């Protein structure tokens, strides 16, 4: 485990990038996904079709293809994201939010949004028909039906599938490492190259941190689900 301890600063920076990718892409995909879900259940036919097409295309494309497109493809049409270049110096090393990072965040956002949209839609669909019918029957207008009856229940039903999507996102950030962001996977790969003798220890250290991150998140989601559960 000496190798791991000696390189703790590099590992720390790696996981900082991982978490930044996760948080920014997580928020971004939540916004885009909600928009897509709203388009999907709304009354405008064109938007409904557009959302369906988006979701089924993106869901069936490997994440790597999307990241390759954002990372290597878009610069070919002069979309380079080079205006983003933030370097945060820390004692452990620099946290770099540059064009590669931005491209990967956008790619992860676009990819995850499709899954978020499906999760939210399934939440809305999980609210029994009778609820909306009853709300209408007692004379609530559309806004009231949504605000007072449907959305509070849909929101709760959305927590478990949304948590699954975001846990997948934590793991998917590693793909960004394969196209050049210096996050956990990328750090691990260069470490296994440099210290060929202690590959297994390095792998176990990284794997355990990932297991830890995933377990924390899934524990939090589970608590939230419990707390908000109705009846």
């Amino acid at each position, binding site marked *: 485990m000496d190798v791991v301890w000696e390189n703790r600063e590099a590992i720390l920076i790696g996981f900082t990038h991982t978490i930044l990718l996760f948080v920014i892409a997580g928020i971004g995909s939540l916004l885009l996904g909600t928009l897509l879900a709203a388009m999907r259940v709304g009354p405008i*036919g064109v938007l409904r079709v*557009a959302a369906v097409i988006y979701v089924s295309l993106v869901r069936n494309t490997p*994440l790597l293809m999307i990241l390759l*497109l954002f990372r290597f493809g878009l610069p070919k049409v002069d979309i380079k994201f080079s205006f983003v270049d933030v370097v945060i110096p820390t004692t452990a090393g620099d946290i770099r939010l540059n064009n590669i990072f931005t491209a990967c965040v956008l790619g992860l956002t676009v990819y995850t949004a499709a899954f978020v949209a499906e999760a939210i839609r399934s939440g809305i669909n999980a609210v029994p028909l009778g609820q909306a019918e009853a709300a209408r029957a007692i004379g609530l207008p559309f806004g009231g039906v949504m605000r007072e009856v449907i959305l509070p229940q849909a929101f709760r039903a959305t927590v478990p599938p949304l948590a699954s999507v975001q846990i*997948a996102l934590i*793991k998917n950030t*590693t793909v960004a490492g394969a196209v050049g962001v210096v996050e956990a996977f990328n750090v691990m790969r260069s470490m296994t190259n440099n210290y060929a003798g202690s590959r*297994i220890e390095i792998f176990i250290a990284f794997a355990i941190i990932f297991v830890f991150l995933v377990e924390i998140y899934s524990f939090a989601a589970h608590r939230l689900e419990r707390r908000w559960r109705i009846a």
Partner: protein
Amino acid sequence: MNNSVLFDTPGPKAAARHRIYTVLAILVLAGILAIAIARLAGNDQFEGRKWEPFVSPVYIEDFLIDGVLETLKMAVAAIILAVIFGVVFGVGKLSEHRALRWPSWAMVEFWRAVPVLLAMVLVFYAWGIDRGDTGAFWSVVIALMLYNGAVLAEVFRAGINAVPKGQVEAAYALGMRKTQVMLQIQLPQAVKIMLPALISQMVVALKDTSLGYAVAAPGLTNVAKLTYNSPANGQNIIPTVLVTAALYIVMNLILTWIATWVQKKFVGEKKIDIAAAAAGKDDATTNPL
């Protein structure tokens, strides 16, 4: 006419408003598409030589034989091994013996939470690196087996638990032994419930074969990489990615379609929530309300 309860059937005023929104939406979407096409055209992305590979027989052969076929081989090998892995550890998690249950649980929890890429790189560097293309191929397959197997273990467990209790009790009442109950009563019924989940997991495995990129494994992604790295094609990364993505989409849509068909034919409404199983929720069986 749609039957959503979320909003009323529009009256004349709302219908008129919806028409305006429809026109606006079409304009916005068409605008986005037009900008994208203008961008691509302005940067010579429609150049003949960039798209030529996808109509020339040599490349098409590469894409179909070295690409699609290899990818499918990888996915099928991974899923077969994952099913075996899943059955062993899924049943192990249900065992009455702590000595079996606990390691199975640890195995499943661990591989479910570790990103596939990490496992892939480990297997590749520890074992596959001296073995050329076969090494890379099996590194991908083994990594996918571990991850998908762990997810499937949860699916199997949920499937076995979804078999009505009365079935098991009846079997015991008839004097069957534990193994008999599992093999003759629980598993056959569980398989039926989890068949669609199994096929959906194949979509995940198929998509994840593309991660072989990181270890230079054969397959569609590798063919794509060779194509856009070849100087003769004028750095045609955008066309290549679009074509490759289209191939993946077609393969996955076919699989999804099979899954839906199987679901309708054999299972009905009951289904297992793959995403929940992958994320580490224990209640992976969902019944629609």
